[in-house]
């Protein structure tokens, strides 16, 4: 054996310039073109469907819905297409999670699963540049694709928004419009990439990504989003049509009495107003109005309050949601890169 030499010298690297990141372009494209192509094909098929039905809707709205309150409009437009539009908008909620999971989770998950990371991370470019050179273009690509798709969804949604049906802030459409759709796609991609790195297998990582995205989207839609900006409160039981109603309640003598639905309201009505005979309507976010009964309660000194987010807050809300999702995505991708660097195989 020859004698041990001096320890590793940190100065060695300085003379060797790193390989440029653009070297990763071909590798990224070649290895992920199938996934990107599948995303493009699926989005393309959905886009064709949205385009065809969207055209019909635009024509119907233009022909029958001036004024929007006409019977012809409700027969030939809202009645005819309303159900489809709701189903489509619900189905589209899953698209960001699906894109993110199927493009993000395999990037590292498959390498670790099949052992090819031992090839990839021992090439001259180094694992850090390899990882950054893959993740950044893929993240940009899926986000851009989702952003382009949003334009089509907005156009598709436009006739219903025009007749006042689709409240832009409502959970059903908010995530499909503006910057939210692309931001959710980016976040799902970042979650998928990290899941693949941690779980080290592609398919379980896809499943976990879908579950996490669903949980995050539900938490956001049902709870978080309503609090981006403090809701407005009004005594007018019917806030403006574009408003997103958060909750309602009754007070008496300045103190909270009961909510606008549930046992408190029902027992008060039974006690004070006798049999509940008024028409019962569901309006907006599930708020229950008991016409006549409302008058009855008012006569007994109860005041009805409604908290809501006005429609004018749509874009501020979009930027808030897009902003925190972007920050979350960057943090997740940074965490992934950190894990790749320190990963002790």
């Amino acid at each position, binding site marked *: 054996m*020859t*004698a041990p030499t001096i*320890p590793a*010298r940190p100065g060695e690297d300085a003379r060797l310039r790193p390989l440029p990141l653009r070297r990763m372009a071909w*590798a990224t494209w070649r290895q992920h073109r199938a996934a990107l192509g599948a995303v493009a094909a699926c989005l393309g098929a959905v886009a064709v469907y949205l385009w065809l039905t969207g055209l019909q809707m635009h024509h119907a709205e233009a022909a029958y819905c001036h004024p929007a309150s006409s019977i012809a409009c409700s027969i030939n437009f809202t009645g005819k297409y309303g159900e489809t539009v709701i189903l489509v908008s619900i189905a589209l909620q899953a698209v960001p999670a699906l894109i993110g999971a199927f493009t993000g989770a395999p990037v590292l998950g498959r390498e670790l699963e099949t052992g090819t990371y*031992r090839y990839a991370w021992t090439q*001259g470019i180094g694992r850090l540049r390899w990882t950054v050179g893959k993740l950044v273009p893929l993240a940009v690509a899926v986000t851009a694709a989702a952003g382009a798709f949003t334009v089509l969804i907005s156009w598709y949604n436009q006739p219903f928004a025009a007749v006042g049906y689709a409240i832009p802030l409502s959970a059903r459409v908010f995530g499909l419009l503006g910057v939210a759709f692309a931001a959710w796609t980016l976040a799902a991609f970042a979650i998928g990439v990290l899941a693949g790195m941690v779980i080290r297998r592609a398919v379980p990582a896809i499943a976990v990504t879908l579950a996490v995205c669903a949980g995050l989207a539900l938490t956001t839609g049902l709870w978080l989003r309503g609090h981006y900006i403090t809701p407005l409160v009004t005594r007018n039981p019917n806030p403006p049509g574009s408003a997103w109603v958060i909750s309602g309640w009754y007070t008496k003598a300045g103190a909270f009495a009961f909510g606008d639905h549930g046992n408190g309201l029902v027992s008060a009505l039974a006690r004070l107003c006798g049999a509940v005979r008024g028409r019962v309507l569901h309006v907006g976010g599930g708020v229950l109005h008991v016409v006549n009964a409302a008058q009855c309660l008012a006569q007994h000194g109860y005041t009805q309050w409604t908290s809501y987010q006005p429609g004018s807050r749509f874009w501020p809300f979009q930027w808030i949601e897009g902003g925190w999702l972007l920050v979350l995505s960057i943090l997740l991708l940074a965490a992934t890169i950190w894990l790749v660097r320190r990963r002790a195989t």
Partner: protein
Amino acid sequence: MNTNVIEASGLGKRYGRTWALRECTLAVPAGHVTALIGPNGAGKTTLLNLAAGLASPSAGTVSVLGGRAAGSRAALDGIAFVAQDTPVYKNLSAADMVHLTATLNRRFDQPYARARLAELGIPLDRKAGKLSGGQRAQLALTVALARRPELLILDEPVSMLDPIARHDFMANVMTAAAGKGEGEAGGVSVVLSSHVLADLERVADYLILLSRGQVQVAGQVDDVLASHRMLTGPAAEADTYTQRPVVRARRGAAQAHLLVRARAGDPVPPGWEAHPVGLEELALAYLSEPGAAALPGPARSRPAEPSKVIR
């Protein structure tokens, strides 16, 4: 060339509570085809992963190619690593694997890679997943060699191959190591691991026996063989032999076989016969006696050479 291509000092790697490699100190000199032999679980793969920069040490240090930190840019640049089971992307064609490796490295000899694949009869447009195990291993070796590395590390390269594929693969490694390939300037240092010495016996000229993370034997094959003898004599006298260190004693009913560290000229007790020993026999003896070690035995035949630092 008198640098060390791998140097480990007190090197250890722990996974959870288990040490896969512990207190490993060794030097692999440049210019050799080095066989790293050890039973399964000896820490061979761990050692090679540490040297290739795939893993980072839990204890100690490892450097490569004359003092470059394992995993550093300069180290990655000079080392081609073919991991266990010769991983290649199954959905990429052979031509794609060549192009991919070319884009991921500073140096890459495309004409050499293509010529070699043609020579081996591997169709360029065939997906790696559709190649036979032997062809896949050859593809992984080809793209590794075309990087023109200073050090080629092969971890259990032939364990999954049939005997013919093993032979072909080893022949190619040997050609590359000797620098006989077309347009090759000089030989490349090679480190191969296996749990079967027979795989590497014909190609290796430097031997490292690793057992439970510890180096048992390290030295040039010729030196190692020249410094061991097999003594055969009466079983009754086996325990009284103390002249030279005994690596392993095997006792039959009448005769005993002692593998001892002795040279051809060393005295043999009366009634005993000395024979030269084969490499496989020697490796088996050491591996079955994990406590025995021949360090730095073989090194005595040569003066210790200070490593040259690459500038």
